[in-house]
């Protein structure tokens, strides 16, 4: 197994760092899958983290000047590592002014992702800083746990309001209740509701727009087409999970939308120029 990548462009480095930092705010540990064309940060839904799962896809060509990898075998040309994204984020943040940053899979005292950066100096010799981030190699037999999630058979798909606005509202609602109901319809309307014994608060959003998925999105073409555009579908979620998702966002995405499967799952999708992030929050009763 080999992996070697090099980032030279400062903007790419900056962007990559921000992606990793966003991931680090969403989860403490995750799986990094490396393929010849892409990098994936994957979190598989487990009871321990509230059933939340995440899939973040980056195209390596958008970030790395050089990228070489050799997977576990020629049929399975992939590398799967369990990593603490915060360590990666910390390492990358300190080398933002580097001339070049190399990311390599190495074996030091244990398998590591080594981030080696060449820093600009006044002297003739460059200053080199290396960060060895320990990783765990995931064996092939477990790879099935980290596959790309299939698009759920959603009832409503709607664009999200500006994330900052959403975050402000969710932050305040969190003080009142642990659970939040997010409901939306095909008419571009979304409501965020909380309800307690003493008070219920609803924030209404209008004219959000619904993404045109077309026929291939919902399998039998039934539910979304024949659905009454006014009728709302809802999902009741743990407000902290939603807040965590909103807190971590560092960049404004080109597109932000969510799919709701009625009383089942909230599927958030953020699309950036060269990165896509999907986040699944299961609904609770």
């Amino acid at each position, binding site marked *: 197994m080999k992996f070697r990548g090099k980032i030279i462009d400062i903007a790419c480095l900056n962007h990559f760092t921000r992606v990793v930092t966003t991931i680090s705010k969403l989860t403490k540990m995750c799986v990094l899958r490396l393929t010849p064309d892409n990098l994936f940060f994957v979190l598989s839904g487990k009871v321990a983290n509230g059933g939340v799962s995440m899939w973040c896809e980056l195209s390596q060509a958008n970030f790395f000047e050089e990228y070489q990898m050799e997977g576990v075998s020629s049929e399975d040309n992939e590398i799967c590592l369990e990593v603490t994204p915060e360590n990666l984020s*910390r390492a990358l943040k*300190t080398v933002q002014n580097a001339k070049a940053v190399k990311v390599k899979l190495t074996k*030091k005292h244990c398998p590591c992702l080594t981030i080696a950066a060449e820093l600009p100096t006044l002297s003739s010799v460059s*200053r080199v*800083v290396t*960060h*060895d981030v*320990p990783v765990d190699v995931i064996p092939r037999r477990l790879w099935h746990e980290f596959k790309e999630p299939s698009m759920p058979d959603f009832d409503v798909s709607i664009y999200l309001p500006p994330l900052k606005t959403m975050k402000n509202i969710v932050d305040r609602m969190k003080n009142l209740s642990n659970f939040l109901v997010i409901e939306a319809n095909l008419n571009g309307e979304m409501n965020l509701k909380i309800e307690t014994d003493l008070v219920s608060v609803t924030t209404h959003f209008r004219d959000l727009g619904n993404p045109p998925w077309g026929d291939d999105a919902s399998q039998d073409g039934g539910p979304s087409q024949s659905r009454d555009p006014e009728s709302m579908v809802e999902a009741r979620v743990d407000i902290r999970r939603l807040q965590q998702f909103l807190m971590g966002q560092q960049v404004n995405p080109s597109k932000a939308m969510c799919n709701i499967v009625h009383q089942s799952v909230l599927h958030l999708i953020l699309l950036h120029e060269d990165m896509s992030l999907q986040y699944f929050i299961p609904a609770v009763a």
Partner: protein
Amino acid sequence: MAIKSVQSVFRSLTTLEKTVEKCHIDLDKQKDRLTFTLHCKHGLLKTHNLSFQDSESLQAVFDKDSYANVFKAQPRLLVDTVIHFPPSLEEVTVSVSDERMWVRNHVEEEAEASKAMLTELCLASDEFDHFAAQVHNSVTFCLKELRGLLVFAESTGLPVSMYLDEPGSPVVLSVTDSVLEGNFVLATLSDDPSLRKNSSKGAHTAAPPPPDDFMNDDMDSYLIAMDTSIAPGPSNTGPPPPSLADDTRSKRPAAVSHKARIRIEEAEEEEEETDDLDRLPNKKFRSLFFGSVLPPSSQLSTQPMTSQEVLASDSEEET
């Protein structure tokens, strides 16, 4: 005397510059009082009476000029170096060779070693104002103290001189100008077997950082090699006596939680008395190694030495 009290006298720099004509400092030994009198414009007199407590002053035993390795750098270089390490990092290891200086984070507990993130930075000799490494050494000392003094050095813009010697000997950082000389004496971790190998005069063309394979910890052979004079500490095995250093140089003690500290002294501070300082540092550390276990929190420089308990007798003294 609390620094905050003195700070409050000179609180607002801009006001001082505008209004104060002269400052008179008077020490009254009988009343234990230090008086600052600020003579301001328009005949205004501000008097600050600060009480102090007499306490024993300790002097660190060190001689900068006898140190083998001397470096001098602009504070910016060191600030740019420490910025790569997380703020929570306690200790850092500095290794030097003829042309280079490596700065690494020091990973303490063996249990963490396999999962800890390692960071290393390499500085070339021509980044320094002065670089003289006669002996290739590695020393480990407290990073937090270093950060503190770098803040001071950066604000004054004065270059920082660093005096390094063997592990165990304190590292001295010094800031000098025409009106002040500040010496920051930091204790270093001593007798780390994996580091001892590197301290040889020019024997290596490039002194590598200590071998990273400290998972090669063969506890059994370690125990056999050690003397039965090692008293049973709480699941602690100290490093072997120096004579066995070469055999075991690739091994590390299972739980290296020994820290020996001589107190850190800043130029103007005074601390509680300990009676250990008259002894040579080396001897002191060796006796602490056998069984003395320090909880991580007591690594702070300002803790007095007397709080440590040597759990095992130093049987070496008997032979």
